[in-house]
């Protein structure tokens, strides 16, 4: 790994000032970035740790909104007194040591096509709050590893409207423990949203046919005869396009049956 300067500011303004220099990069929990730097796929000259910023920590539930600080670890979300779809998803990411370091901001900024949080954010219509603006999840995810974030912009918080019922189903890729396919189903007064991770070449997406069917009838039967087009699905040694397309329907059904 190439060497770099390490800084750990205690507030957002100082972090932005540090990030303004050439080749500076934000460091969340490092559970993606450190392995990437070891492979020399990233070589920042300065790393700006966000974990010392107290205003970016913690989970707050007030009324119908859960607000999660951008530097909150997966373990702290898993342990929070929030809706079960969200805490269940957080408690299934990676393994305990990964959850004790990895953060929601890092996961959403990275937008790995097999990551879990993008499915939760998209299915709940979350708002991604940065140092300068608020971005709706529908506008935020722009394909694998691509987001609406600009060069010097950090996720300070994520606001999630609490669903009436929700569930996340993840079919683990057994070696990496990432999602081979993951489905988040969230039911609201005005309809149901279904977001799929792990499956598509275009990253996380909403399965609109299932949303329409489940909004009329929130049951397994409503989607049991639907299918997604396999042509856009990822194909690799862990599963073919058709296998992933089938998992999308199966896991959506399980999520509906388990939603609470």
């Amino acid at each position: 790994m190439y060497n770099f300067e390490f800084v750990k500011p205690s507030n957002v303004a100082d972090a932005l000032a540090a990030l303004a220099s050439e080749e500076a990069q934000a460091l969340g929990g490092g559970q993606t970035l450190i392995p990437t730097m070891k492979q020399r796929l990233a070589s920042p000259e300065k790393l700006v740790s966000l974990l010392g910023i107290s205003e970016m920590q913690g989970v707050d539930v007030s009324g119908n909104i859960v607000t999660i600080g951008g530097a909150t670890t997966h373990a702290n979300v898993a342990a929070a007194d929030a809706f079960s779809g969200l805490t269940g998803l957080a408690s299934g990411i990676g393994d305990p040591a990964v959850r004790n370091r990895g953060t929601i901001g890092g996961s959403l900024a990275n937008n790995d096509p097999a990551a879990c949080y993008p499915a939760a954010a998209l299915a709940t219509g979350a708002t991604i709050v940065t140092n300068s603006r608020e971005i709706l999840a529908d506008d935020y995810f722009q394909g694998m590893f691509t987001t609406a974030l600009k060069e010097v912009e950090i996720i300070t918080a994520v606001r999630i409207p609490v669903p009436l019922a929700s569930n996340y189903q993840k079919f683990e890729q057994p070696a990496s423990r990432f999602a081979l396919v993951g489905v988040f189903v969230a039911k609201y007064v005005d309809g149901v949203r279904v977001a799929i991770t792990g499956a598509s070449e275009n990253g996380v997406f909403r399965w609109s046919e299932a949303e329409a069917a489940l909004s009329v009838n929130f049951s397994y039967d409503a989607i049991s005869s639907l299918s997604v087009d396999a042509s856009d699905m990822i194909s690799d040694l862990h599963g073919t396009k058709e296998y992933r397309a089938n998992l999308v329907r199966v896991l959506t059904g399980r999520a509906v049956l388990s939603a609470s």
Partner: protein
Amino acid sequence: MQNISIKINGKSVSGSVEGRTLLVEFLRNDLNLTGTHVGCDTSQCGACTIHVNGVAVKSCTMFAAEADGFSVDTIEGQENADGSLNKIQQAFQDHHGLQCGFCTPGMVMSAADLLKNNSTPTEAEIRTHLDGNICRCTGYHNIVKAIMAASGQDVSAIAAE
């Protein structure tokens, strides 16, 4: 280089590290605490598991500078005050929870992390908690049995495998 100070196994330690120095490198190379192992260096195997501020962390996936001002516990600090093996270590020995022993420091630290929050875990809870700890030798059975025994549960009905 930057100066850091960390409380390691209860003792204050200072050192000078590069930005890129991993916490496990600081422990092993600078402090000669070689009980923490590096199995993969790719965040997968958990041989490098230690506790940072009381929670399990992969020390190959954290920079030493990130731990400045924190408290760190490693396998070297796990023994009882009189130098004997602690109950988890003793249970690994009693129940053959290791073969080559390479994964063992990480297994013991992960087990300690589990038992702190869940004093009598079920077999399923132990297996789930060890998701990030890979063992090439044992097949896990006796590791799980050792952790159940360390938590005071009766393992006499679990066959040796």
